[in-house]
């Protein structure tokens, strides 16, 4: 939709509690049972910049997950909320507090929002949160690259620039599409993709929440799927998981043919999204 104006829509989400089935256990990749902690809901003590392997959790996100009790409305909430969208708490002890959307999680069910730790401590499952959504359909920085899940105002937070007809992007590391697990085959406007990386590796150093990651041979414009020589770039939005086929989650932001990109693998020097910079988007409104 190059040239057209991106539309803003105010959405309502509810602070999530996290769900369990009758049985408290999930099973890890070696068949051991574990109790999943931090899989949705309000999670304290996990912040942008933390290693995805540092805590004992399952898909724990740095902040809060928003949901909606009506499935279709939840899908819209997830599909339309984009990185950088401002949110405001409308009810409960934290009413009036502001936060910023980081990304989204699988199933078209959860939006991840970053708040300061003191706001998080005052939030309670069921609190209403308004999201000023904007970003889907916005013009891309480069015509051949599809941009999604990010507000136009948040692009300046990322190490992304157009240089010599390519998108120059700094990332923590580059991974191959074969490690993409849950989320493959799903619409990237409504899911993240989990990287099946149970521990730091040679190709992927200590991955941190808020990092940018490049995935080779992955076309993430619509559904995510294998396409040779395509590249998808996303932001790490939740921490690792012991479940087979799961792992740290990446919300896809940019996708196109590899020749449209100049990717710099910055390793330890990479500066991902920080809480400070993300929350600065709403600070002047406090």
């Amino acid at each position: 939709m190059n040239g057209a104006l991106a539309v803003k829509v105010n959405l309502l989400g509810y602070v999530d509690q996290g769900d369990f089935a009758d049985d408290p256990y999930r099973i890890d990749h070696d068949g051991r049972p574990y109790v999943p902690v931090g899989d949705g809901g309000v999670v304290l003590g996990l912040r942008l910049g933390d290693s995805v392997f540092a805590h004992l959790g399952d898909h724990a996100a740095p902040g809060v997950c928003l949901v909606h009790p009506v499935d279709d409305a939840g899908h819209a909430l997830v599909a339309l909320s984009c990185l950088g969208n401002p949110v405001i708490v409308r009810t409960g002890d934290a009413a009036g507090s502001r936060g910023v959307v980081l990304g989204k999680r699988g199933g078209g069910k959860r939006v991840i929002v970053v708040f300061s730790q003191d706001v998080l401590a005052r939030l309670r499952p069921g609190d209403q949160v308004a999201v000023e959504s904007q970003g889907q359909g916005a013009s891309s920085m480069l015509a051949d690259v599809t941009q999604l899940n990010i507000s136009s105002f948040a692009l300046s937070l990322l190490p992304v620039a157009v240089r010599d007809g390519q998108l120059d992007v700094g990332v923590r590391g580059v991974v191959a599409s074969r490690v993409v697990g849950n989320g493959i085959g799903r619409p990237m406007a409504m899911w993240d993709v989990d990287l099946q990386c149970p521990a730091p590796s040679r190709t992927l150093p200590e991955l941190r929440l808020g990092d940018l990651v490049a995935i080779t041979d992955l076309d993430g414009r619509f559904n995510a799927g294998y396409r040779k020589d395509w590249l998808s770039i996303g932001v790490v939005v939740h921490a690792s998981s012991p479940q087979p086929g799961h792992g740290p989650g990446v919300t896809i932001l940019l996708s196109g043919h590899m020749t449209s990109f100049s990717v710099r693998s910055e390793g330890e020097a990479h500066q991902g999204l920080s809480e400070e910079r993300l929350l600065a988007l709403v600070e002047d409104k406090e």
Partner: protein
Amino acid sequence: MKVTSNVERLLTQVLAGEVWPPLGDRHGYRVDPDGRAFLLPGMGGVTLDIHCGDPATGYAGDHIEPGLSVRHRETAANYALQYLTCIGNRVVVSSGPAKGAPGFVIGQHAYVLVDMDGDEMRNVTTGDQVTVFARGQGLAFDDHPQIVVKNLSPTLLAGMPGGTLHDGRLEVHVSAIVAPEAIGAGAGMASEYANTDLMGAYDVASPGLSLGLESLRIGDVVALTDQDHRYGRGYRAGWTSIGLISTGSCLLFGHGPGPSTIMSGPSDAFTIVRDDGANLRSFDLNTTERQP
């Protein structure tokens, strides 16, 4: 030597299911690899004229489910049906004009998929009741403790070529070896539920998509490289999972013909033999007996 197992300890559970209708939504369209909209038949109902041994691709369809697509109306009872049913299990149609006609399970795809020999499938439709004689979960091989078995009926095991080799490995015949790049939707789900879609077998000519899987057939036994499906489906270098293709053509991107998993273990626990005959059609399941 034929593999020995704990088969004599396995129980049979009789499960009820119902042929489930194809489902749509009011928007109709889905999106292909190039972003084009399509509306095609595939999941649910009774899909005729595609059987074990037939090509898995080449149809104007999406998520083709050969034969009967079966589930249970109640959520928990449905999970019992989906989790306990194994490939090769005997099925009998229990209502309607085809009552008494036999069939056999070819896989799971969030539905139990049932193939039938002969023409009686034409008399089966949505709402017809079927009975599944579920047997196989818990199956374990005596001499291959590293290999975890799932969704494999003793009937299918008995019909498969291969077995325990002198060096202690399990010989398994497969008609294709699948690279981990092909693993699509279904990754991260329980190994007893639905299946693993394989990408790279689309019926569209678009650059960069093919992974050489266009000649897969329904019923093919395949080896999935770098996959550990013992406790859910995930990537793990140096591990191999064995599956059996039960679904066909997909246009939805990131999806494709899919195997249900029947075994997983370290790659060096297996000797994989390429064999075009490694298809459920070639195995004698003895399922043609009509229920009295």
